[in-house]
């Protein structure tokens, strides 16, 4: 085989290579570099090998304890908001009108929370929930419910979760609605003729047709909630105590609060790795959903 050798091609790749190098590879390598060292300020660094990583995974150390605790809280948070937002989103999508002018109105109203910047959402709820001047906090306390997200852990969690549900259920609902809209009328008519109940229609037609968008919704909501920072930081600042300190908040505390660059770098690498693995699992599941293995021969 005669291949034309043309070295000019390298010049065409070079710009992309440079951009990627400066935007991704170099910063990542810097982090890898930091994660192997310790610093006491003054730009003095000492070699630490895989010391930080060992500490991270060992709950008896300070770093490991904080990391694993915040990781646990973060996973719990993601699980709770998924358990609320996915069913709620489906219910909202199912109860939306199928046609007419009200469709546009519903879509705009649903999209509103999605358009608000994270820190604004945080500020809204921070004020909304204050017992002295916030509508929610004031009302609750006057109803005799002792609610204070600054001092009570349960209240803080409830606030952060409700805030996330308020902010992001729309996304799940919109995705599900798109899935529902793609079901041809004939399916509903056939189900009617087959005598299917409302629940049977949901199980046999609507849920299977929403399968794909639901997977996307779960993936997006999991990743987003796993990386959540701004909203709880604005509302609770991670408190009371460490009760709402999620991984990203812990990371910022270590990196910028204590200026422990080595520990922070190691933590961020592990954090990144978890997200990559979860992404990969979801991606594999998604691409395999729907195209199952060929039917077993010999059964027939």
């Amino acid at each position, binding site marked *: 085989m005669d291949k034309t050798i043309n070295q000019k091609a390298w010049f065409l790749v070079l710009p992309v290579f440079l951009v990627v190098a400066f935007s991704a590879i170099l910063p990542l390598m810097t982090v890898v570099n930091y994660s192997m060292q310790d610093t006491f300020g003054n730009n003095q660094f000492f070699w630490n090998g895989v010391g930080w990583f060992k500490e991270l995974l060992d709950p008896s150390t300070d770093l490991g304890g904080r990391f694993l605790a915040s990781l646990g809280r973060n996973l719990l948070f993601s699980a709770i908001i998924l358990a609320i937002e996915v069913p709620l989103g489906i219910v909202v999508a199912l109860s939306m009108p199928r046609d007419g002018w009200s469709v546009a109105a519903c879509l705009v109203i649903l999209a509103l929370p999605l358009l608000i910047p994270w820190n604004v959402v945080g500020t809204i709820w921070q004020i909304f929930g204050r017992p002295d001047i916030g509508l929610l906090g004031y009302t609750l306390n006057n109803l005799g419910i002792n609610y204070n997200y600054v001092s009570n852990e349960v209240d803080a969690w409830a606030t952060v979760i409700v805030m996330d549900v308020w902010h992001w259920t729309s996304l799940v609902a919109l995705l599900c609605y798109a899935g529902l809209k793609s079901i041809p009328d004939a399916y509903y008519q056939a189900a009617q003729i*087959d005598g299917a109940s409302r629940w049977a229609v949901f199980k046999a037609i609507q849920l299977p047709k929403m399968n794909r968008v639901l997977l996307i919704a779960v993936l997006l909501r999991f990743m987003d909630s796993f990386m959540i920072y701004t909203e709880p930081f604005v509302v609770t600042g991670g408190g009371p105590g460490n009760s709402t300190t999620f991984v990203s908040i812990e990371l910022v505390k270590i990196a910028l609060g204590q200026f422990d660059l080595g520990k922070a770098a190691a933590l961020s690498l592990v954090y990144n790795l978890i997200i990559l693995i979860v992404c990969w699992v979801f991606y594999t599941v998604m691409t395999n959903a729907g195209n199952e293995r060929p039917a077993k021969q010999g059964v027939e």
Partner: protein
Amino acid sequence: MARIDLVDLAHAYGGNDAAPESFALKPVTMTWRQGGAYALLGPSGCGKTTLLNLISGIVTPSRGKILFDGADITPLSTQKRNIAQVFQFPVIYDTMTVGQNLAFPLKNRGVPKVEIDARVRQIADLLDLTPHLDRKATRLTADAKQKISLGRGLVRSDVAAILFDEPLTVIDPELKWQLRSKLKALHRDLDLTMIYVTHDQTEALTFADTVVVMHDGRVVQSGTPAELFDKPAHTFVGYFIGSPGMNIVPAEVRGREARISGHPIALNRSYDALPSGAKIEVGVRPEFVDVAAPEPGLLSANIERIDDLGRVRFARVRIGDAKFNARVPPGFSIPGDTAGLVFDPSHVHVYADSRLVEGTA
């Protein structure tokens, strides 16, 4: 199983107060025999799917009544009507196996499991689906999926009629034949009323023993394929059925004679009482007009071209401004640009305002 009567049935999607011309289905009264194989034939938008959906209950009529065996079922929901319907695109439940798909209508009606299994097995045998019973329904071919849709109708023992809404649209041509003969066989074996909507005349004429032709929201004729061919009740039927369709030309008709562009044509019957002021036309199928050498006594026409369809040749000719098709007899060679036309008087029909006029003997 039931006889279906439509009594003054009409539907407008805009509601009852819509203008009469905008009715998707104009008032119709007719009877569908128990056990009959019917085809609803007409071009797109003629109201045939509307009529079908009215019978199945997907659409509620603006006016009129539907009777099953004499009982008024107009207000009943689709579930309660004992109707099965097969749609244009196969509808199957994705997550279920073929067997579960077939069992679905019975499960919804709370039939005991043993009975469901027996019934599903029986129907799967009937439709040659038995080898696929445990497979996911999504992965079958389009024709197998249509069979499943059909099977979901057949499993119910109480089905009054099966409605087909252009069920072969997405099926490969060679499989269409198979599936259609399957339907015919099922109809013979099961003694079910079948109503088959299509815009394909071959499909309609081969499937049905009665073809109902619709045009512009009206039922214009219903009859056997032979009746539709020999004696179209409406110029639309003549034109729509047959290939090429019927020749319809304006004419003056008096007694036993029609004049086309001034040329007299003999008629088999006498037409004396034609409505005055009506548009009078003469219709004759190309099969019953032969091209001949031009002679003084014959209507002369200009030949534009000859279409050879294999078994038969048709000449496309022009009489004055009107286009006309005529048969070229076997072995006849065309002498020149003009030819004479020989009419078979027993197949020349007279239409007043597009409707067939019965002459007197």
